[in-house]
């Protein structure tokens, strides 16, 4: 991998269009379905390696692990089965949830640029209802389709005060467009079909601070980060419609290496989404609630000398969803169980990681099962 190649991929990252995570009926409300910006490697371990994984975009301090110019991207294919009181449906979609490029600046400092899904509001809904028109009941069929979401563009720098203490800072730009199309047609052809398209665009900024420490050399690593996002500007069809107060995020993680072949990791993340509760209710939404998420995972190196030779990864994760479908139900939740592996190619300059995850989501009578296959391809100089 040449330096030019890395720069080319980095440019691709910066020019990439709207990203997306998986579409879901749980992404209808608020800003949509939040996404954890982790690489395919970390995803295979339930996301638990994300605080320490240099190609994930959670903790800016983890960037220190990059020693050579590196670029990577991830592809996620998901298959979904949704159920709610009005019926059930299956669906599938493909997205590109994370682009990443980075490299070392000097022996103590590394930097990266990444583009990842912050929230995804891609969904399609269809429903029928009788409407009273001119004294008669006419069946109306509505379809509501939304595509897009919010992309998190991050520039991160990590500095190693010592081999056992690293701090990082990330500057975030939140941007994205949500294209919402509403259609209605009637069984009675005397009534015209209607179509309405609106574009909602978002813009905001934030900062994250992270740290990694190694209290027990080669055995235990600890990490944590905080993130502060400013108010998110919301425009509707280029018209300013106000702002949403964004959450503050706090995360802690630990990574244990009991042997040369085994890595165990866990994290806990808390986000204060309720800060935008009032903002959403004023827009006729169902509000937002604070959320917590946790993950536990492992990576087992089949050959301790060659970590890129089909390691086995596995993990579980749990997360609360911030945007409720109704004000009656408790917050939605999602659970995930994942496995993964990977290998090196091109003389160790290329990485190929694969993660397979089964996800369950529910909120009252609304449920969803999803199978996701994530591929990550990285290139190093």
């Amino acid at each position, binding site marked *: 991998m040449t330096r030019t190649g890395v720069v080319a991929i980095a440019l691709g990252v910066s020019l990439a269009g709207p990203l997306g995570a998986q579409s879901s009926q749980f992404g209808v409300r608020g800003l949509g379905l939040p996404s954890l910006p982790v690489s395919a490697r970390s995803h295979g371990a339930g996301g638990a390696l994300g605080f320490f994984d240099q190609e994930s975009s959670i903790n800016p301090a983890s960037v220190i692990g990059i020693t050579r110019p590196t670029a990577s991207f991830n592809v996620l294919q998901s298959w979904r089965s949704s159920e709610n009181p009005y019926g059930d449906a299956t669906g*599938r979609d*493909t997205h590109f949830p994370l682009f990443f490029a980075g490299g070392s600046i000097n022996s103590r400092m590394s930097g990266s640029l990444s583009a990842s899904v912050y929230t995804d509001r891609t969904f399609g809904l269809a*429903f029928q209802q009788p409407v009273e028109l001119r004294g008669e009941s006419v069946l109306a069929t509505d379809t509501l*389709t*939304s595509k897009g979401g919010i992309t998190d563009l991050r520039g991160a720098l990590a500095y190693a005060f010592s081999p056992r203490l690293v701090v990082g800072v990330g500057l975030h730009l939140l941007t994205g467009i949500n294209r919402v199309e509403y259609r209605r047609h009637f069984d009675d052809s005397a009534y015209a079909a*209607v179509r309405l398209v609106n574009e*909602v665009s978002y813009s905001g900024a934030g900062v994250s601070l992270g740290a990694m420490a190694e209290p027990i050399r080669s055995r235990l690593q600890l990490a944590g980060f905080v993130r502060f996002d400013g108010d998110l500007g919301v425009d509707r069809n280029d018209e300013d419609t106000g702002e949403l107060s964004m959450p503050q995020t706090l995360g802690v993680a630990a990574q244990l290496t009991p042997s040369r072949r085994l890595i165990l990791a866990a994290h806990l993340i808390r986000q204060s989404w309720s800060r935008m509760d009032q903002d959403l209710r004023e827009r006729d939404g169902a509000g937002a609630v604070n959320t917590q998420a946790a993950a536990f995972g492992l990576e087992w190196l089949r050959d301790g000398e060659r970590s890129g030779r089909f390691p086995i990864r596995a993990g579980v994760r749990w997360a609360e969803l911030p945007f409720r*479908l109704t004000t009656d139900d408790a917050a939605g939740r999602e659970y995930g169980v994942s496995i993964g592996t990977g290998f090196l*190619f091109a003389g160790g300059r290329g990485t190929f990681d694969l993660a397979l995850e089964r996800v369950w989501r529910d909120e009252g009578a609304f449920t969803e099962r999803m199978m996701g296959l994530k*591929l990550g391809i990285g290139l190093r100089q």
Partner: protein
Amino acid sequence: MTLRQNVVGAALVAAIGACDQQLTVPGQCPEFCPGGNSQVAEIVIPVTLDSDTTFVGYVGNLEVPALLVSEGIEPGEARAWYQFPSRPDTVLVDEWLPYTIDSVAFSFPMVGLDTLRDDLRLILHRVPITLDTTVTFEEMEALLTDESVVDTVALADTLRAGQVARFVLSGDVLSRLEIPADDSGFLGLGIRLVPGTGSGVRLGSLGGSAPPVWTTYARVEVSDTARQRQSLSFGADQNGYIMARPPITDPDALWLGGLPSARSVLRFELPLNIRDSALILRATLELVPASPFAGIPGDPGILQVRGVLRDLGGKSTPTFTAVGARELPSSGSETISVEVQSVVELWRGANGLPQMLYLNMLFDGGSFDRPLFRSTRSGMGAPQLRIDYLVPGRTEQP
């Protein structure tokens, strides 16, 4: 890393990249309606007071798209006439040679006819070539005598509008088509239906799709047998029709059709919320007749409603893409509804067209129907728009 692994990796990426999206799940409001459910509503908008007007004089005899011929029907008696150009006495076959007439044919494009009848018969009369559009019905009747009859021809019961009725005359009838020297080869033809028919037909005209054609089949004395038979064809170059009863005109009403034809304009004022943000599902113009409809059951007249590009009163330019249309009943006094959603849709937005409807009869001046509707000056029953519209929920709201 083996070649196989490379191939597997590339195939996986390609397979994922090729997948399409299937997003839709069933739903229901309010759970799945961020920003609220869409609402439908209905509003009736009366025509703006004194803004409804009839203008007369759009189509005259020369532009009329069809000639009316009728007998014993409610709209009234109608007679038509054509004048054909001069037929020469010689025909060019190497040189100009005289000819002998074998037969004569008249081809009449049928614009409309009563499809419920299979016994329609036309009477063709010779009329003076001096006949013009100033002729009155009484003067015309005086010309259509037994002595002037050329022939009586039956319309085939399979004949339909858009087809051509062709009549070939030969034998003794030809003597009635001889053209006096003073007429210089010009031929005048008057047409009526057999008395007591109780129906009507609409024939092609100069101002319509095609005038009738007069064809003469002749024989020339030349040695080449293949060139002995010749034909001369001429399309009519003047035409007109006259009705016994002029259309009812009433300054307190709105009327359409007739000759010269009448058209009407109606103006409305849509509420701002409909113009700006509502989506129009259905818009119906309701017209109350001021006198019973009178038409032919098997050949209904069609009322056309359009928008206008600019409000210039009677000289407004109507739109051609958005049109509402409705067949008129041949009798009765029921309220007429015309769907005009596509027209009203053009009124919306910052650059919407004038909120005006332009009413005319299809085949303007060439239709038996001459409807008369109530107006804002009629006391009651003025035209009105019934609009069903949708106020969309703000589904895009986060």
